[in-house]
């Protein structure tokens, strides 16, 4: 190994780091660390200027290791690795130090200690960098097929898009019918049309597409593998089937909360909007004269703090429809904030007001009260604007309840190794800029299983997930991060501990073919199966197996740097 020549780049990140950590002091400190031949501060290391500085300094100072101390590797590692590669340095000779999320942002009131901590973190990063080695990435082929889980509008849109791009799609739907939540709706906002014909045309396109293999009713039983190469098995109407896909899109939808409030389920004339739409669809609603609707039932409360995004519009839609069916009826919507964002929703709300729907704002501290024993007779509500309680006669009470996560999210999350976040919905890779990707490569998310969304938003997310999924499918090859395990056959005793702990059956005991070791039983790693967790490396009693990028000596050097030992 050539003598390490380490370059350290410390980012001010505007004032995000520089406002708390004394960056020039850290730069001076870094200059004194072993093997550091260059250290500098950048206003933004990730700007074009910062990137060119890295490249220029690699050449100027003949750097063979680069350390950047800035934000998090989870977003910026690819950028800096590419910069190294552009300058001819193997990208695995790069080490990331996080002094923003893990330092300046969490110690804003303690500049001195934050600066000391930043120095130590840089010292640890430099210590590890000294032991970094060049790596080659393993390339693997992408199996040119996709699995879409969920046959609602999000899933169908994704499936059709990929199929029309020429890829084989396995669409897995647990119900015996395509269409998802839309099948239960009576009419759609803001277009005020029945969903039936619209859904039918999409369902037909899906069913008749030669590239789409429909599995229905079916549930995913197991999934293993990695981007480009997933093995899936499903239970299709009682029969086990398995197939291979390159990418997976999760679009499993959500369910509507059945509330335990306002005597729902106890009094006959208390419905949710979904119940109401079913009755309207079936023509079983009957007569009504006084309709009261209550919004945010079971939403925006301490145990379920989120806003479900589409209930206000649902309530306005049905309120206007009630007026349309019976212009003589009195229709009240009791609401908190009205979420009619954007152009069309606001207009829709205005039109409902013009049509005679009355809107009354209530406060959560004084919620509406239901009056009546066998049936709801009236609803009492404190009207903020009039500063008094009003009693509204009521023969039909309709509750707007939020979308809640499906019960099987957790099972799916365990199976696919994708996380669940706020409120039990799936957690995307980045809430702002990677809204339809999971942190795990090759798995994507769309629709209401991610967060409440209306049809337009769910369809857009379905297409967006298809766009991200089409990237590896079209490229045909993916590179797997070179953090897989390697065995030193000279040290390996062939005990098989690694074989036992590996969750992916990526290690086998084999007779060595290496010259001088012929016939010796040693562990061998299949790089295509290894996912780079490092369990084997921690378990090996002889330290014969190492995880690239996280070797024993690399981790130990960080520990020693922190504790002041060499």
């Amino acid at each position, binding site marked *: 190994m050539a003598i390490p020549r380490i370059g350290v780049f410390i980012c001010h990140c505007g004032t995000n780091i520089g406002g708390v950590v004394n960056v020039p002091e850290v730069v001076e400190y870094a200059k004194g660390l072993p093997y550091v031949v260059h250290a500098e501060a950048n206003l933004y290391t990730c700007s074009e200027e910062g*990137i060119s500085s890295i490249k220029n300094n690699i050449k100027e100072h003949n750097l063979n290791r680069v350390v950047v101390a800035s934000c998090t590797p989870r977003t910026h590692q690819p950028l800096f690795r590419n910069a190294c590669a552009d300058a001819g340095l193997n990208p695995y000779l790069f080490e990331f130090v996080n002094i923003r999320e893990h330092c300046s942002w969490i110690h804003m009131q303690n500049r001195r200690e934050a600066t000391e901590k930043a120095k130590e973190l840089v010292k640890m990063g430099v210590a590890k960098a000294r032991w970094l080695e060049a790596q080659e990435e393993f390339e693997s082929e992408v199996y040119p097929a996709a699995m879409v889980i969920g046959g609602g509008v999000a899933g169908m849109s994704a499936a059709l898009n990929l199929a*029309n791009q020429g890829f084989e799609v396995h669409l897995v739907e647990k119900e015996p019918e395509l269409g998802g939540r839309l099948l239960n709706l009576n009419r759609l906002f803001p277009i005020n049309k029945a969903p039936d014909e619209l859904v039918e045309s999409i369902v037909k396109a899906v069913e008749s597409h030669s590239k789409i293999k429909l599995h229905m009713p079916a549930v995913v039983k197991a999934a293993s593998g990695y981007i480009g190469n997933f093995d899936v098995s499903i239970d299709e109407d009682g029969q086990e089937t398995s197939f291979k896909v390159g990418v997976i899109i999760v679009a499993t939808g959500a369910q509507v909360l059945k509330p335990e409030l306002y005597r729902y389920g106890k009094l006959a004339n208390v419905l949710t909007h979904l119940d109401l739409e079913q009755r309207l669809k079936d023509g079983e609603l009957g007569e009504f004269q006084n309709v009261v609707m209550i919004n945010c039932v079971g939403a925006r409360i301490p145990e379920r*703090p989120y806003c479900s995004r589409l209930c206000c519009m649902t309530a306005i839609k049905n309120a206007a429809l009630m007026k349309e069916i019976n212009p003589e009826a009195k229709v009240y919507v009791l609401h908190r904030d009205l*979420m009619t964002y954007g152009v069309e929703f*606001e*207009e829709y709300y205005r039109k409902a007001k013009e049509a005679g729907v009355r809107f009354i704002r209530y406060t959560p501290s004084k919620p509406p009260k239901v009056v009546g024993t066998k049936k709801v007779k009236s609803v009492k509500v404190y009207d903020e604007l009039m500063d008094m309680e009003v009693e509204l006669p009521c023969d039909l009470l309709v509750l707007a309840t939020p979308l809640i996560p499906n019960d099987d999210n957790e099972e799916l999350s365990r199976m696919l190794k994708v996380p669940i976040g706020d409120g039990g919905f799936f957690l995307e890779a980045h809430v702002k800029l990677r809204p*339809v990707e999971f942190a795990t490569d090759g798995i994507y998310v769309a629709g209401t299983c991610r967060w409440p969304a209306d049809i337009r938003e769910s369809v*857009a997310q379905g297409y967006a997930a298809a766009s991200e999924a089409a990237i590896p499918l079209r490229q045909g090859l993916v590179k797997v991060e070179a953090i897989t395990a390697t065995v030193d056959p000279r040290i390996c005793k062939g005990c098989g501990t690694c074989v036992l702990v590996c969750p992916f059956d990526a290690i086998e005991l084999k007779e060595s073919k290496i010259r001088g070791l012929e016939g010796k039983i040693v562990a061998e790693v299949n790089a295509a199966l290894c996912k780079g967790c490092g369990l084997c490396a921690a378990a090996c009693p002889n330290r014969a197996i190492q995880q690239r990028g996280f070797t024993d000596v690399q981790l130990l050097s960080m520990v020693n740097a922190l504790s002041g030992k060499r």
Partner: protein
Amino acid sequence: MAKKSVLVIGGGIAGIQSALDLANMGFQVYLVEKTPSIGGRMSQLDKTFPTNDCSMCILAPKMIEAGRHPNIKLLTYSEVEEVAGDPGKFRVKIRKKARSVDEEKCTGCGVCMQKCPYKTDSEFQVGLAKRKAAYITFPQAVPNVATIDPDICIYIKSEGKKCGACIKFCDAGAIDFSQQDRIIEVEVGSIILATGFDLYDPSGLEEYGYGKIKNVITAMQFERMISASGPSGGQLQRPSDGKAPKNLAFIQCVGSRDTRHKLYCSSVCCMHATKEAILASEHYPDLKAFIFYTDMRAVGKRFQEYIARAEQEYKVTYIRSRPSEITENPDNGNPIVWYEETTARNRTSMEVDMVVLCQAMVPSGEQKKLSEMLNLKLNAYQFVDIPDRLFHPVDTEIPGVFACGFCQAPQDIPDSVVQASAAAARAAEFMSKEK
């Protein structure tokens, strides 16, 4: 033609996302941006809600990736001039305006900016600071090259008789006043519109005194003021005397949800005001922020929690009211907000150090020109019309032409990114069928 091509108009976060998706799929992308750098509105923001993640920090990697991608041809400081041909085979003329700087030679060192003696209001800093005639829009610009503004540059105006400081000091020899506008012609299979938004001028709402009362500013100006890369280096300075405000009022729906101005809701102001109030309180722990709102529209992931945190941790006060007037205290320049507290039903006033108007957002000015060029329908508010908005939410009425982000409806960053990827998927699908 070896590779199928796509034209993406607009280099904000939506345009960048569409371009990257398509380029990664293997298509040739022409990304046209009218200003000298890609980055769009997101590059002007300090932080983003609801995580308070630094806006430039999450945007910069995408900008750089777009700048270095072998399948993306960046055409900045450029505008689409003409679109002819048919879906699947559009012929597009793009005017690449003369920058008076050789993009290949310029190193972005900024010497020309230092030496240039002529100034104008900086668009990027929303008039809070000046920029030179020779300028780089912001430090993270992609491409990181200078541009010389022909409307200000005395060398250009005097036809080479005066000044020329930039030529003298540029070590790279990149200044090139002989440059002419160039017309670039490309043939593309599909077009994606991502032209974003402009800010509605609040001086039309005379009752709020914008332009007359010094300490009444707009949200975008606030955003630049609180940003580390802004003219005051992240310090809040009220325009009348440069002092840091101790209390701040944010006024929502300025021009939005207003029968005299824009009827629609601009969708993002409730959240950006909340974010700005949090940031102000973070910078100045003793500061008090008040938000005057109509409905608190917090519908996205973690938005309700964000508002709760603003109230509990940062002591932001939300007042449900639309103020009727803002006057100025002549003694100290303080704005006085006159309002009726609708929940408590009393008419009152509040004197604060500074007022931030959360102005409406409108489709970008170039939208009209583009729609005429493409023969594309716009709706009553000049947003791109989407005929089947539920089931084909990014398809315009012209096959092969898609629209994403704010140019088709007000929406926040994640929704714009979703639509941008959706438009990329639809364009890829369209070109697959058009074999």
